[in-house]
Every structure is written in structure tokens, then in C-alpha cells.
């Protein structure tokens, strides 16, 4: 007995300690070619990008990576900016905050980039912010939460603010007479503050938040949280997350046979949502940009030509359709390039030029940045879409 006890104990201790170490770490990143240092004012322009290429944000980061690579190639073919070649250096943050911080430091200190794009999600973007600010290098995030840019001099972003997304959801809920909402949200940065915002903006509309549940973006089983949501007396539920988790949450909710309406965030504006949720996707309503419903827009919509060209380029290069996240990367790239054409790469001048972006017609909306608004989009950038027949459809413009 004594001996067998010892025999079992040794591997147990080993595995237990391994488990703690391993679950925290992934493999080293895939991208990131080492670049020669030394960017001057006439050498190649360097744009760094930090994306969630692996990990929970992969459904966002992969199309973003594709988009940036495609746009960099297009720019190269057309001769760069003022005769200077543009070099794109992409780093994978593995969907982690510390990965994003490390990658940003590497890009700024090691590669001397002139501007940094990223990250794909709010948490990593927030981790990048102080590094860009300390180095005084302009940064354009492609994630959503307003905290990324609030009060920042050097940081901009291209995804629609979560605030206006919540407004759109609450306005629709009000017209339908829902007074009680349940929220199930991403436990990472993207879901931070959403409950408070719904409570605050809901109060003005006579809508209250009756329960909040959270989930890790790596979660696969949502029955526990959704069982609790079912037990609440909410009129409708808001699922706030990204694919695939938000799609699986939708599936689990529909599976429980609640038959109450579901609102999703702009975090599911891609085809991957339908892969994860399957038939259960049908009926979900989500605010998002116009990319996925461009074929249903009126002919005179100013964004239509831009979006259609992007879709054609993207599907020509990669064989599938771009997601809204690809669109955020597209906008970040074009805003950056336009500012560089105007002001060159001296950081302060470049920053000022980005802040002066005006009426830029992009994929996610028409951007006008100001000193107080580093997001550049208002609620007109959003439409409401509903999920039907395996795709997003224009529900309300």
C-alpha cells in the first residue's frame, strides 16, 4: 500500500505542476519576420500590426491579416507612398494581453515602425496603448471598446464604439416593448463595462438589466449560463462576445427552447457565426457595419462602391468573403496610408494627420476624427442586421 501510494504520488505531483505551467502558455508566434532596423525619413516606411492570429480571437485576426497583406501588396504594386516603399510587419499576439504588449514593444523598439495597427480585440489593444503612448508612436486599434481611445493622444480606432452599438440594441428593444433584458457577456476586455452601459442607457428608455452572466471566449459549453438566463424573467437576451463563443452561446440558448429574442453585438459580424451557431442563428439581431449586407443597400449608398471593390479584391485573393473585422483592418490601413501621404512619417505630424481624417468613406462607415473623437464613427455607421438563411440581412438601416 505504502509503495503504491508513492508510485502514484510522484506522477501526480509532476502532472499537477505541469498543468499549471502549460495551460498558460501557447506555442511561439508564426508571423514576424525580423526586419532590418533603421527607419529614416527616406528609407522604407514601416507599418507594424499586432493581431489575434492564433488563440480565441483567430476568427477575427486571420481575415485581418489577409486584408493587411493584400493591401500592402496593392500599395507596393502602385509604387508605395511618395516613392518610399511600405513594409508591413505582422506579429501574432496569440490573443493575449501580454503577447500584445510584447509584440508592440518588439515592433516599436526592434523594428522602428512608424505606426502600429491593432490589436484585434479590446483587451490586447488596451495592453498596447501605454506602450505606443510612451514611445509616442501613432496606434490605430481595430477593436471596439471605447476605453481603448478614451483620453488618449496617440491612439485611434476603427471599429464602431460599443456605446453606439448598445444604443442601437436598446432603441430596437424599446420599439418592441421589451423592458427587461438579460446579458451574457465576454469575460475579457470586450465585455467590460457593457452591463453598466446597458443599465445607464436603458434607464433613459425604461429598460432594466435583470441579470448578467459571463463566459470565457475559449468556452465551449454554455448550458450553465443559459440555464440561468432561462430562469430569469427577461423579455430578450443580449449575447455580447465574438465568434465562435458567441455563436455557441446562441446555439445553447436556442437549444433550451426559450423562444425569446436574441440580440448579438457587432462581434459576430462574420460567416464564422453561422458555422458556430448553425440553424440556431436564425432570428438573431445585431448592429454592424454595412459590409455583410452591401448587396441589399440602396444603389446610391456612398459606401457601396468601396465595399464592393474590397469584397471583390478579397475574394479574388483568398477565395472567401471578408468579415467586418477584415473591414476594420482595411479602414485602419487606409487611414494610416492617407495620413502618411499627407504628413510623412514624423510621429507628431502623422498623429495630427490621422486626427484630421475627415469624411473618409471606409468599410465600417464614414470616418471623421477630431481631438475628442478618436473613433471617428457615429451611430450612422451601423445598421441592424438579422440572421436568416445562413447570412446577415439588412433589417433596419
Amino acid at each position, binding site marked *: *500500500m505504502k*509503495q*503504491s*501510494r508513492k*508510485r*502514484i*504520488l*510522484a*506522477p*501526480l*505531483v*509532476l*502532472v*499537477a505542476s*505541469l*498543468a*499549471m505551467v*502549460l*495551460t498558460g502558455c*501557447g*506555442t511561439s508566434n*508564426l508571423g514576424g519576420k525580423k526586419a532590418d532596423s533603421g527607419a529614416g525619413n527616406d528609407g522604407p516606411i514601416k507599418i507594424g500590426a499586432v493581431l489575434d*492570429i*492564433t*488563440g480565441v480571437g*483567430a*476568427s477575427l*485576426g*486571420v481575415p485581418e491579416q489577409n486584408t493587411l497583406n493584400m493591401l500592402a501588396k496593392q500599395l507596393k504594386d502602385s509604387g508605395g507612398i511618395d516613392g518610399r516603399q511600405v513594409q508591413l510587419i505582422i506579429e501574432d499576439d496569440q490573443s493575449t494581453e501580454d503577447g500584445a504588449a510584447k509584440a508592440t514593444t518588439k515592433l516599436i523598439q526592434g523594428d522602428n515602425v512608424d505606426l502600429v495597427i491593432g490589436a484585434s480585440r479590446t483587451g490586447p489593444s488596451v495592453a498596447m496603448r501605454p506602450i505606443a503612448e510612451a514611445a509616442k508612436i501613432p496606434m490605430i486599434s481595430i477593436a471596439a471598446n471605447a476605453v481603448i481611445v478614451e483620453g488618449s493622444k496617440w491612439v485611434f480606432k476603427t471599429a464602431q464604439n460599443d456605446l453606439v452599438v448598445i444604443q442601437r440594441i436598446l432603441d430596437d428593444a424599446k420599439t418592441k416593448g421589451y423592458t427587461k433584458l438579460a446579458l451574457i457577456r465576454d*469575460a475579457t476586455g470586450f465585455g467590460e463595462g457593457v452591463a453598466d452601459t446597458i443599465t445607464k442607457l436603458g434607464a433613459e428608455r425604461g429598460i432594466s438589466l435583470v441579470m448578467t*452572466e*459571463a*463566459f*470565457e471566449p475559449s*468556452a*465551449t*459549453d454554455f*448550458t*450553465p*449560463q443559459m*440555464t*440561468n438566463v*432561462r*430562469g430569469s424573467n427577461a423579455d430578450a437576451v443580449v449575447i455580447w462576445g465574438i465568434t*465562435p463563443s458567441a455563436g*455557441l452561446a446562441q*446555439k445553447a440558448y436556442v*437549444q*433550451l*427552447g426559450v423562444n425569446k429574442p436574441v440580440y448579438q453585438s457587432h462581434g459576430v459580424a462574420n460567416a*464564422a457565426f453561422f*458555422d*458556430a451557431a448553425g440553424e440556431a442563428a436564425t432570428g438573431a439581431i445585431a448592429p454592424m457595419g454595412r459590409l455583410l449586407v452591401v448587396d441589399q443597400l440602396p444603389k446610391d449608398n456612398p459606401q457601396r462602391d468601396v465595399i464592393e471593390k474590397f469584397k471583390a479584391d478579397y475574394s479574388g485573393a483568398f477565395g472567401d468573403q471578408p468579415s467586418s473585422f477584415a473591414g476594420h483592418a482595411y479602414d485602419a490601413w487606409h487611414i494610416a496610408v492617407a495620413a502618411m501621404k499627407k504628413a510623412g512619417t514624423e510621429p507628431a505630424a502623422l498623429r495630427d494627420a490621422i486626427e484630421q481624417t475627415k469624411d473618409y468613406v471606409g468599410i465600417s462607415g464614414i470616418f471623421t476624427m477630431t481631438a475628442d473623437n478618436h473613433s471617428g464613427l457615429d451611430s450612422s455607421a451601423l445598421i441592424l442586421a438579422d440572421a436568416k438563411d445562413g447570412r446577415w440581412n439588412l433589417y433596419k438601416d
Partner: protein
Amino acid sequence: MLTDFLQLTVAGLSQGTVYALLAVGLIAVYTVRNVINIAQGDYATLAGFGAIWLVTAGMPLLLAILVAILSVTLVSILVERVIIARVKNMTVLVSLIVTLGVSILLEAAMLILWGPEARSLPKLPGEDLFIGGVSIRSQELWMLGALVVVGGGIVFFYEKTKWGKALRACAEQPVAARIVGISPVMASVVAFGIAGLVGAVAGVVYSPIYLTIWSGGLLLGLKGFVAAVLGGLTSFRAAIVGALLLGMLESYVSAYVASGLRDAVAFFILIAVLIFRTQGLVLTPRQGRA
């Protein structure tokens, strides 16, 4: 309240079947070779991706699943022949390090071959049930069925057949087993084959509802390991019960306590077992199998 509880139980049981299958694979290898196979969970993701890839290439679902399971069984046997069998002084520590290497290798290969995004197999045929407010997905029944057939089959194999008894003999009395003519090489190959088989079965049945992602295997394997520990690393039956309990407990904790604690449950249990009850759920004191 009761329906909620039952709903959580159903969700926990189906999650538990995955842990149970992986635990069966871990024990099969540990009892015969004294090797803890960190790559056990990666067999599941590998089979999931393999089947998804074949289905995308146009193969019928059931055939794709079968081919994927057989291929992963072969992969596991190859791992044994090419890597494990060549290690001269195999100790538990060495086995952990070596199979960790295998796990990283498999994950990197999957990332390169199939990309970083999560994907899923089409679900197996069947209607979802809805009984008294409790929803049971048809896929969950398939998962349970897989555990009963495959897990049960392996328990039967070990306990009732001559081959199985020979394997156990190898584990308990390696020298004596060799004297009576049982080949330790064959025993090791069969054990790894079983590990590949059950891992692959788990991977293809859970993919339609939990999705398959390249990096998912490690955590799944560790949860399976916790279940195996509940079986004292030797008892299939206790490990299967432990796995189902673990799944249910995770489900209850995320609903009634906090969903963020879900993945911590398994490791709390691991620590508790380490301190208080190294034989896990095994009831009778085991005869030393030194």
C-alpha cells in the same frame, strides 16, 4: 429549479463523456507502460480535424469519421514505435517530457495544416429531444453512446478477454508475463492503439457541439488526466465515474457559483486528491502492483 438542475446535469454528463474517453486512454497506457501521455487530448483534436478535412473534401460523414479514427489509432501506435519505444530509461518524468513534445508537435502540425480557427464536424443524424423542459441534443446521446460502446468495450476487453488479461499481466508482473510468453512490445502497441482509438472517438463525437481547435487538446487531456487520477490511474470504472462527476461538477459550478471557475474545478479536485486520497474513487484498497 429542478428542470434547471437536470439541464445542467445533462450538459455536465455530455462534457464528462469526453473526459471519460480520454481517461480510459490515459489509463490504458499508464497501466501497461507507466507512461503518462500528455498528447492524449491531442488525439481528439487530430481526429476531429482529420474528419472535418475529409468531409470538406467530399467524403461521406460516417466514412470520414471511421477513416479519421483509424488514422489516429495508427498515429498513436507510430508515436509508440518511433518515439516511446526508443527511450531507454523510461520513467514517469521522462514520459511526461517526451509526450509533451509529442503534444506540441501535433498541435503545431494541426495549426500549420488546418489553420488557427475553430471548426466543427456536421452533427450525426438524429432528432434533438425535449423532455419536461430539459433539452437533450441528439449529439449528446451519440457521445453517451460512444462512451458506453467504446469505453465499455475496452473495460470488457481488459477484464474478460485473454488479450486484456495478458495486458494487465504485463503491467502487474512484467517479468513473469514475459516468462509465460506475453510480448511486452505487443502489449505496448495495443495499449497505445487503444489510447489513439478512444481519443479519436472522443474527438469526432464532441466536435459538432464543442468545436475543434488546434490548441484545445492539452486542456482536454489534462481534464481527462484528472478523471484518470480519480480512478487511481488504474481503474477504468472509477475513472469513468470520476469523469462524469467532474463534468457535472463543472456544470454546476459555472451555473451556481461563477462561470469563470469552470476550468479551476478539475485542478481543485486534483489537488484535493493529491493531499487526501491518492487512490481516487477506487473503493477497495488496491493490492500493491509493484
